[in-house]
């Protein structure tokens, strides 16, 4: 049990270090598995230094920096055993435009590398512009959802203020 966790940790950490630097356009990060006699008591700590900033525990980073770092961790685990599908529900909500761009580039990279099909729920106009196709969900009849294929202009209208 403990060896498997240790091995998994090693692989995930390797992916994580690369993905972090990729997503932040620089900087460095790593994971630490705190020691404990009982492997079920070990804690997973995250340390990160965005470009130009000093290394800190995840809890001291900004809201957007924390979200991007957590995303790097999720994808690090994903890449140890890539699936044919990946579903992301509003993971780009706290990101600014520069980080959204790098996030979208990463999705393209992973998709090209693993053949994974992505379903990405988003409110970000910039993310929408970076995807291959868009489906809009509407409730023209109250409380009843309908799915409709949309282009970028129609998507922006869908989410626009009335």
């Amino acid at each position: 049990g403990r060896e498997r966790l240790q091995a998994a940790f090693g692989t995930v950490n390797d992916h994580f270090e690369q993905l972090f630097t990729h997503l932040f356009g620089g900087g460095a990060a790593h994971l630490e598995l705190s020691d404990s006699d009982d492997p079920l008591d070990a804690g997973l700590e995250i340390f990160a230094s965005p470009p130009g900033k000093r290394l800190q525990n995840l809890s001291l980073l900004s809201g957007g920096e924390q979200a991007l770092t957590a995303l790097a961790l999720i994808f690090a685990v994903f890449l140890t055993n890539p699936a044919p599908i990946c579903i992301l529900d509003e993971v780009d909500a706290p990101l600014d435009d520069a980080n959204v761009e790098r996030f979208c580039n990463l999705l393209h990279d992973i998709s090209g590398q693993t053949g994974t099909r992505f379903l990405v729920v988003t409110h970000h106009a910039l993310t929408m512009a970076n995807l291959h196709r868009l489906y809009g969900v509407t409730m023209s009849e109250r409380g009843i959802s309908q799915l409709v294929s949309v282009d970028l202009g129609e998507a922006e209208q869908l989410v626009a203020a009335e």
Partner: protein
Amino acid sequence: MQFQRLRLTGFKSFVDPTELYIEPGLTGIVGPNGCGKSNLLEALRWVMGETKPTNMRGDGMEDVIFAGTALRPPRNLAEVTLMMDNADRTAPVTFNEHEQIEISRRIEREAGSVYRLNGKEVRARDVQLLFADLATGAHSPSLVSQGRISALIAAKPKDRRAILEEAA
């Protein structure tokens, strides 16, 4: 196996039959607050064998059945079907001669869920194992629900370690 299409009827706010094509690359799902985007993703999680209603914002599993609006009565059953392409023949042995694989889950009030694979009734466990073999499934890292990211950030280190067990 590759994901191709998702069909849902009577599932939460998607009362009328709805079909989502899952195509290669990156597909976006957009719309105003409360219009049903997360519901759509939950349908995929559900058909893959999700067993905890709380993971889909409900108290009981029947909470996924369309509960009615001012203009429409509630339904008594919800059904979600996932169509998969098995050209690479990676389906479970008993179904591997099929080009197409259909996995469906249907729930009726007071009667619970029934799973079918190409029309033949199977157990929840069979469906969960099928998706686990594809490195996906309701509890895999490939399904990132709304709020998962903040939960991961706020998690105590001990609880965060659970994400590694997905990779182990």
